[in-house]
C-alpha cells in the first residue's frame, strides 16, 4: 500500500516536472534556446495570481486564469524584448541572457512581494481525500496528474492540428523554407514562448498550493524539468512527459527506500547512466547528420 501511495505521489510531482519540461521543450524546439528563466517566469506569474487573490475579491479560478494569461503574455514579452535582438548569436549567449533574466525576475519578485513564504490557497481545500481500495489519495495529487495529462493532450493537438502549431513546426524545422511559405518566424516563435510561459505558469499555480509560495519555489522544479526532459528525450512532447513522470516516481521510491537525502544524487547518477546508453534520451531520435 505504502508502495502505491509513493507511486501516486511520484506521478503528481512527476506531472509538475513534466509541465516545466514541456514548457522548456516548446521553446527549445522552436527557437533552440534552453530557457533558464522558465522557472522564475512561472514563479512570477504565480505571484501575480496570488496578488490578484489578495487584492480583489475574486474566485480562485478567475485569479488563476488571469495569472496564466499573464504567464503567456510574459513569455511573448520576453521573446520580443530579450530574445529577438539576440537571435543569430551563439546559443551560449542566449543561455546567459536567460540566466540573467532569471536573476532579474527572482530579485524583482523579492522586492515586490518579499522573500518570506506565502500560503497559496488550494482549489480543492474542501475536498475529502479519495479512498480507493484502502489507499488514501490526496485530491490535489489526482488534480495535478489530470491537469498534466490534459495539458499534454491539448498541446499535442495545438501543435499537430492548428495553423499556429503547423507554422511553429515548420519554423523549427527550417526557418528559410518556412519563411518562403509565408510563415512569420517571429510570430511562430512568439507562439512557442507564449505556450511555454503558459505551461510553466500552470505548473506554478499547481505547485504553490502543494508546497508554499516563495521566490525559490521554482528553482528545483526547473532543474527537475530539464532533467526529466533530457531523460525522456527533448524532441517529443510525449517523451518529455514520460521522462518527467518517470523521474518523479523513481525519485519518490529512491527517497523512501534507499536514502532520503542521497536520493537526489542517486537520481542523477541514474540519469547519467541512462544518458550513456541512450544519449538523446529514452524516447529521443538520434539525429543523423550529413557531413
Amino acid at each position: 500500500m505504502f508502495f502505491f501511495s509513493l507511486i501516486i505521489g511520484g506521478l503528481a510531482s512527476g506531472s509538475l516536472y513534466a509541465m516545466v519540461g514541456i514548457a522548456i521543450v516548446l521553446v527549445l524546439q522552436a527557437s533552440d534556446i534552453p530557457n533558464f528563466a522558465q522557472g522564475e517566469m512561472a514563479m512570477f506569474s504565480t505571484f501575480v495570481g496570488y496578488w490578484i487573490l489578495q487584492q480583489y475579491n475574486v474566485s480562485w479560478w478567475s485569479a488563476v486564469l488571469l495569472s496564466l494569461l499573464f504567464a503567456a503574455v510574459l513569455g511573448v514579452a520576453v521573446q520580443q524584448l530579450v530574445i529577438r535582438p539576440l537571435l543569430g548569436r551563439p546559443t551560449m549567449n542566449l543561455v546567459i541572457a536567460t540566466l540573467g533574466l532569471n536573476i532579474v525576475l527572482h530579485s524583482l519578485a523579492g522586492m515586490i512581494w518579499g522573500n518570506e513564504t506565502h500560503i497559496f490557497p488550494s482549489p480543492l481545500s474542501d475536498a475529502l481525500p479519495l479512498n480507493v481500495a484502502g489507499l488514501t489519495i490526496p485530491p490535489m495529487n489526482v488534480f495535478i496528474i489530470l491537469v498534466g495529462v490534459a495539458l499534454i493532450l491539448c498541446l499535442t493537438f495545438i501543435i499537430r492540428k492548428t495553423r499556429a502549431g503547423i507554422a511553429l513546426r515548420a519554423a523549427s524545422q527550417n526557418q528559410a523554407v518556412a519563411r518562403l511559405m509565408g510563415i512569420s518566424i517571429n510570430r511562430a516563435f512568439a507562439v512557442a514562448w507564449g505556450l511555454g510561459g503558459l505551461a510553466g505558469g500552470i505548473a506554478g499555480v499547481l505547485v504553490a498550493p502543494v508546497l508554499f509560495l516563495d521566490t525559490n519555489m521554482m528553482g528545483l522544479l526547473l532543474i527537475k524539468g530539464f532533467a526529466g526532459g533530457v531523460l525522456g528525450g527533448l524532441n517529443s512532447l510525449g517523451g518529455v512527459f514520460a521522462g518527467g513522470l518517470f523521474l518523479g516516481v523513481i525519485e519518490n521510491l529512491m527517497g523512501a527506500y534507499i536514502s532520503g537525502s542521497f536520493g537526489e544524487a542517486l537520481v542523477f547518477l541514474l540519469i547519467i547512466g541512462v544518458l550513456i546508453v541512450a544519449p538523446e534520451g529514452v524516447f529521443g531520435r538520434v539525429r543523423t547528420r550529413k557531413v
Partner: protein
Amino acid sequence: MADAKKHTGRAVVVLVGLVVLTAPFWMSGYPVYVLSLVGIFGLVAIGLNFLTGYAGQISLGHAGFFAIGAYTTALLTKKAGLPFVLSLPLAGVFATAVGAVAALPALRLKNLYLAIATLGFGVVVQKLLFEWQSLTGGGAGLEVPAPRLGPIVLSTAGHMYYLILAVVILGTWAALNIARTGSGRAMVMVRESEVAAGCLGISVAKYKVIAFSLSGFYTAIAGGLYCYLVRYINPESFNIHMSITFLSMIVIGGLGTIPGSLLGAVFYVLAPELFRGIKDAPGLVFGLSLVVVMVLMPKGLWGFVGRLWRRA
C-alpha cells in the same frame, strides 16, 4: 597615431600590473580579500574556458571540481598532516583524475544532455560531501587553520593574496601556452567540428578527456586556495548556482580567450560589490547587466575591449 596607441596600451598594462602587485600595501583588508577572490575565480574561469570555450563542452557541474579541490586540500592538510604546498597540487592531481572519469559521459553526449549530465556530477559530489560526515564533517562544514609555507604562516590577507597572485600568474602563463600550442588548437578543432578533427587525425575522445582533466585541475587548485582564503567550507555553498555563475563568468568575459576569463572573474566578483550600495537591488542590477552585456557585447567583455581598441 599607431605609436600613441601602443604607448597607451603599455601604460594601461603597467598601471594594472603596479596596482595588482602593490595592492596589499595601500589597500585595507577587505579590498585585498576581494582581489584574492578575483584571482581564485580567474583560475576557475581559465579552467572552465578550456572545457567550454576551447573544447566546446558545456559544464554545469564545475562547483563539484571546486568542492573537490577545497575538500581534498583541506583534508590532506588537516587529517593527513601533509604540508599545504604538497596537498594543494595533490588536490589538483586528484581532480584531474576525476575529470578524466567525468569526461566519459561527454564522449557520447552533447549540448543540453551534457549540461544535465554534468549538473548531475555536481549534485553527486555535493551530496557525497554532505553524507560522508566522518570524513568531511557534513553539513557542519570544515574549518581550516592558516596555511603554512615551510616555516612561514600565511596568516594575513596580504600573505594569501601574494600566494594566490603567484598561482594565478603561473596558471595564466601556462594557459596561454597550452592555448596556442598543439593541445589548445586540437581542442578548438574538436569544438568546431568533431568530424573534421577526426579527419585530421585528432582523437576527439582523447582531447575531450584532456579538456575535462585540465579544467578539473585548474578549478580544483582554485578550490584549494579558496578554502584557505575563507578558512571555512561547507558543502552547501558548492551548489548548482555556483556552477551556473562559473559558466556566466566565462561567457561574460569572453568564450575561448584567456584574458576574457580573467575579465569575467573581475566582473563576477566586483559587479555585485559595486551594486551593493544600491538598496535592495544587487540581484536585479547584476541580472540586468548579464542581459545587457549579452545584447551589446556578443563576444563578451574581452571582445568589446578588442573592438574599442581597434576603433581607437
